[in-house]
């Protein structure tokens, strides 16, 4: 990556903390966001757990005005945007509004709204739907509402690529800056916790607890599926030059990015992990970083059997005999699988690692799996100086993305 893009602001809402300081603190302490689901009834289901943001009070962050008619995903994203701009000490004004861009990854962010809108039409008849709720049914609704809220008048983009959405959105945002379509970009992602999404993952047998104990334990022998979670995070991205000019605090630098789709099958992991290896290699090449220079890998491992083996295999493939030396951990052991938001949450976590000098733990690691035998930073965080780190995101339908972040 020729132009130097830096992170100068962070806004994050997660099941383990709201705001970057609380989030980083919780990661360091190894706090888990997984608890019994409260947002809807699970009594008739085999599964009961989720990683909800239980203390979410959008009014406290945004003020009470203008929130009526907005769905949860949108409110989560608006809060992340507000926190990120405040953190970056930025204000969007009439004069600078066109220099801001927005690029957000979400795939199911509008699912609840789409479903409820349609159900209302099916139940009461099409004349009785609430017209104010129709705009929430488009997938680009949360990012567009963010633009409206902030009066951000540059490009506003939405990316849907499933598990890799928010990393892909960050890359799209970086391209907006490099192609001079925007000077500062709010890049990130959002996914909300709702019955439709939860039951959807349940129905396709993706949740832990359907075929084994309801545990969130990446790389552990007992793993049998994901615990679904929610979250929203936004990074303020700009060129190093722009950041220095305005005297911004720089948290980290984005050194490289790689993405590789491997055509295989819908909702099935390709067992060789060809696409993930390729994405990691592309990212390292883009960053001009050799594998041995990487201090930490923020894994996409989500406690499904196949994904964690594939990721372990990819690290072994790239690191060879040194694979055992690199620290790998799965923040999803604390945050659950937040789908489209997972990439940016991992990026925020890794920025915390660089800033605070720690590697977050992989929680609930107890029983070793012979095919997952690397250093997963089991159960408690580790002090370490992180100069360069890799953030992985990948999913079963073939999408793989990887970002290199550095000091």
């Amino acid at each position, binding site marked *: 990556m020729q132009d130097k893009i830096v992170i100068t602001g962070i806004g994050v809402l997660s099941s383990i903390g709201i705001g970057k300081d609380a989030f980083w603190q919780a990661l360091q302490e190894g706090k888990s966001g997984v608890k019994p689901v409260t947002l809807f009834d699970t009594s008739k289901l085999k599964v009961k757990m989720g990683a909800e943001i239980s203390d979410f009070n959008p009014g406290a962050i945004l003020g009470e005005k203008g929130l009526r008619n907005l769905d949860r995903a949108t409110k989560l994203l608006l809060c992340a945007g507000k926190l990120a701009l405040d953190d970056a000490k930025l204000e969007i004004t009439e004069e600078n*509004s066109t220099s801001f861009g927005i690029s957000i990854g979400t795939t199911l962010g509008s699912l609840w709204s789409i479903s409820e809108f349609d159900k209302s039409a099916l139940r009461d008849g099409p004349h009785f739907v609430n017209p104010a709720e129709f*705009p929430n049914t*488009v*997938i680009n609704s949360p990012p567009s509402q963010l633009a*409206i809220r902030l009066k951000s008048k540059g490009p*506003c983009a*939405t990316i*849907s690529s*499933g598990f890799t959405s928010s990393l892909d959105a960050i890359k799209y945002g970086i391209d907006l800056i490099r192609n001079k379509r925007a000077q500062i970009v709010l890049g990130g992602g959002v996914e909300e916790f709702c019955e439709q999404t939860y039951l959807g993952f349940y129905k396709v047998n993706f949740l832990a607890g359907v075929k084994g104990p309801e545990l969130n334990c990446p790389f552990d022998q007992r793993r049998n599926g994901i615990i679904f979670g929610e979250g929203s995070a936004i990074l303020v991205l700009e060129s190093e030059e722009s950041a220095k000019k305005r005297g911004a605090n720089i948290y980290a630098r984005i050194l490289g990015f790689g993405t590789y789709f491997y055509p295989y099958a819908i909702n099935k992991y390709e067992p060789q992990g060809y696409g993930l290896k390729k994405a990691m290699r592309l990212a390292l090449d883009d960053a001009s970083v050799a594998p041995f220079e990487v201090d930490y890998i923020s894994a996409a491992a989500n406690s499904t059997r196949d994904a964690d083996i594939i990721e372990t295999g990819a690290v072994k493939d790239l690191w060879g005999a040194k694979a055992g030396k690199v620290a790998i951990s799965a923040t999803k052991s604390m945050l659950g699988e937040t789908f489209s938001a997972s990439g940016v949450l991992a990026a925020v976590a890794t920025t915390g690692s660089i800033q605070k000098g720690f590697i977050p733990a992989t929680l609930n690691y107890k029983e070793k799996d012979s095919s997952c035998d690397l250093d997963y930073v089991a159960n408690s965080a580790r002090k370490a100086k992180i100069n360069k780190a890799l953030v992985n995101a990948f999913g079963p339908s073939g999408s793989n993305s990887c970002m290199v972040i550095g000091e």
Partner: protein
Amino acid sequence: MSRRVAVTGLGVVSSIGIGKDEFWKNLIQGKTGISKVESFNPAPYGRSFGGEVKNFDPLKFMLNREVKRTGRASQLAIAAAELTLTDAKIESSMLDPDKSAVLIGTTMGETSVFEIVNKAWFEKGLEEVEPFMVGRTTANLLSVNLGIHLKIGGINLVIPTACAAGNYAIGYGYDLIKEGRVDFAICGGADAFSRIAFTGFARLYAMSPDICQPFDKNRKGMLVGEGAAILILEPLEKAKERGATIYAEILGYGLSCDASHMTIPSEDGITRCMQNALKETGVSPEEVNYISAHGTGTVQNDLNECAAIKNVLGEATKKVAASSIKSMLGHCMGAASGIEAISCCLAVSEDIMPPTINYQTPDPDCDIDCVPNEARRAKVNIALNNAYAFGGNNSCVVFKKYAG
């Protein structure tokens, strides 16, 4: 690296034709694709017309087992991609996965499957919903299904920026080719006819009871349509080397966000978007010959679009033609700007401007030359493709005639 970007393949599935030749022939004849809605019973909506693609047989483009595991939007996209590859004389084996991108814009994603799932869930309960159906509902599957069908790896994204999505996908494809990151971009938009979109537009009173009449004083609103359009973009030099047909060159594009209202387009936002497009491409207002207008046929859209065109082109507005092919197709959501991009490519390569049909009564507030009712033979060197969206996500792509 900065490379020139050529459009070398056009594939379209629309209510007035499948494949670019049939589409273009009907487009310049001013044929309408609007008919009575058949995919569901429209009676309770008080509106009954739309732009469904009625003679689409997915089995002509894919295997039966693929048809079973994909929704209609994916099928439309796959068909359009097959058509565009044939048109460009490209075998999928020519597509180096390290140098290819599949980029699909959409509004509603895989809505036909979702609507079946949601209805079954609501009416019969979750137990009655087929798990494999649930797994087929997400929007990201449009590009995934296309990638799997063509066995193309590489960059693969869905850009769901609502009704400007096709343009966003084409624009990003342009960026990737220009920078040398890929040598082939397979990009465009797809949307299936949607009960949910129909419900929403009917309820917003934005939908016409019969015909779509962009820029007409008595225009009564938009109509929902469906379709898919996929373009192939290549570096101009490489396209020349392989002897490809070059329909048009893409000079660049402009984006903006209204940041004002989710559903009402703003004159300011559209103006800035077109200005950005001209600024990036170095095209002056006097050089613009043709605009494929967003032209939905709603009072607000057409008013704001005409005002924006005048803001941007000034005096040169008098010499420019701006027609809306939505008068024939209805609004094909995320596919719309992809289909309109194909129309722009053919306009610059053939020197023909497609008409705005159903134009009867001039509106003094929309006093632009909308190529009323009949296609026009005229030199088209530069064409702009305007597309706006819910959320105020505006886009404008600039096409130029390729003279060899």
